[in-house]
């Protein structure tokens, strides 16, 4: 079905009279095919997912997680992190809200770690640009980092390393917050919500799609083999932790960074190294750490930092070893 977009690009090139085998033609073809494909997929996916999650409010996620067995909590926390739309500026109120409802720090962190890594826009971009196999591997790694990270944090007793204020709040019981009385949503309500989400998300991401794919197209058409290929292409072991160390202080959201991933991979950077770099720019950032300082002591922040460094590095190595299978 996706080859329609290639045919569309063929047709446009014939109409404007550019030869597909020229570098310019090749770049244009790539650009038209990829942007049209991504926008169509985005519109369908955002709308359908929003339709399904219209009734999913963070308060309900909290109440649901609060009643779960500890071990199940990590998986569910990570899963909800992936499907719940959530702005990083809310991470502190969310952390406090979850903690006071008695949810273990690990499950809360599973939510917070997975949330920036996985969302519908990221999945569409990955699937459309790098293939659905790669998208699946990305989701598995993203959720794996969230789940194992949460498990690890609880096993070292992370709750003792929270700020005193948070420890007092812990398990105090959820404050009775039914902001919007949960009435049953009609189909019309769901449609209105989904249409609003679609508009809001597209408004936010459209330029990133153009910039990212444009970059990829330029590389595709004009750069045969870059220096990346020669210097880093062999996937030397140290390139992965270096990529993560460079990535952590940089900050980007998944939408901005995935088209860049595509250009890096096309230009010869090994998949594992690329993934490690991109996940670390998305999952961790200095602004985020500064926010978390309000609820965590330095010791825990340092542990979190090292934990992310280690887990993205391991994921990168693993993926470099199995690169042939993934792409």
């Amino acid at each position, binding site marked *: 079905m996706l080859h329609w977009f290639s045919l569309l690009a063929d047709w446009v090139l014939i109409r404007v009279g550019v030869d597909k085998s020229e570098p310019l033609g090749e770049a244009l073809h790539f650009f038209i095919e990829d942007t049209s494909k991504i926008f169509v997929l985005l519109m369908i996916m955002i709308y359908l997912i929003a339709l399904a999650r219209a009734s999913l409010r963070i308060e309900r996620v909290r109440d649901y997680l609060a009643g779960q067995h500890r071990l199940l909590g990590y998986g569910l926390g990570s899963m909800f992190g992936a499907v719940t739309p959530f*702005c990083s*500026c*809310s991470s502190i*109120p969310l952390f406090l*809200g979850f903690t006071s409802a008695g949810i273990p720090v690990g499950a809360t962190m599973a939510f917070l770690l997975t949330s920036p890594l996985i969302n519908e826009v990221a999945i569409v971009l990955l699937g459309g640009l790098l293939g659905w196999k790669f998208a699946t591997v990305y989701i598995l790694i993203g959720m794996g980092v969230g789940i194992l990270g949460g498990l690890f944090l609880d096993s070292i007793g992370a709750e003792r390393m929270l700020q005193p204020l948070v420890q007092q709040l812990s398990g105090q019981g959820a*404050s009775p*917050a039914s902001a*919007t009385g949960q009435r049953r949503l009609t189909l019309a309500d769901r449609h209105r919500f989904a249409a609003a989400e679609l508009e809001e998300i597209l408004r936010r991401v459209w330029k990133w799609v153009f910039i990212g794919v444009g970059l990829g197209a330029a590389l595709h058409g004009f750069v045969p083999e870059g220096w990346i290929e020669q210097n880093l292409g062999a996937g030397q072991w140290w390139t992965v932790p270096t990529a993560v160390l460079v990535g952590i202080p940089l900050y980007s959201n998944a939408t901005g960074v995935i088209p860049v991933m595509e250009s890096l991979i096309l230009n010869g950077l090994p998949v594992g190294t690329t993934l490690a770099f991109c996940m670390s720019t998305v999952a961790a950032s200095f602004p985020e750490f500064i926010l978390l300082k309000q609820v965590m002591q330095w010791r825990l922040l340092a542990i979190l930092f090292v934990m992310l460094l280690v887990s993205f590095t391991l994921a990168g190595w693993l993926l470099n070893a199995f690169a042939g299978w993934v792409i």
Partner: protein
Amino acid sequence: MEIKVLGSGCAKCEKTVESISRIARELGVDASVVKVTDLQQIVALGVMSTPGVVVDGTLVHSGSIPHRDEIERWLSG
């Protein structure tokens, strides 16, 4: 009428304050719109996704920039 907008300084919170004040002026409603950025207060009100809106002590909204018709309903209520 006293309206509080809860949120620790994200762009959406600013927009919420702006649009509530603007609509109140348009409708000629006498409302004071204050921003609350103190975490303890936000948590005490049970808000987990910001911006949240409190009208005369009751939490009426959280998690997004409220729609115009919603704002009008609060202001006229």
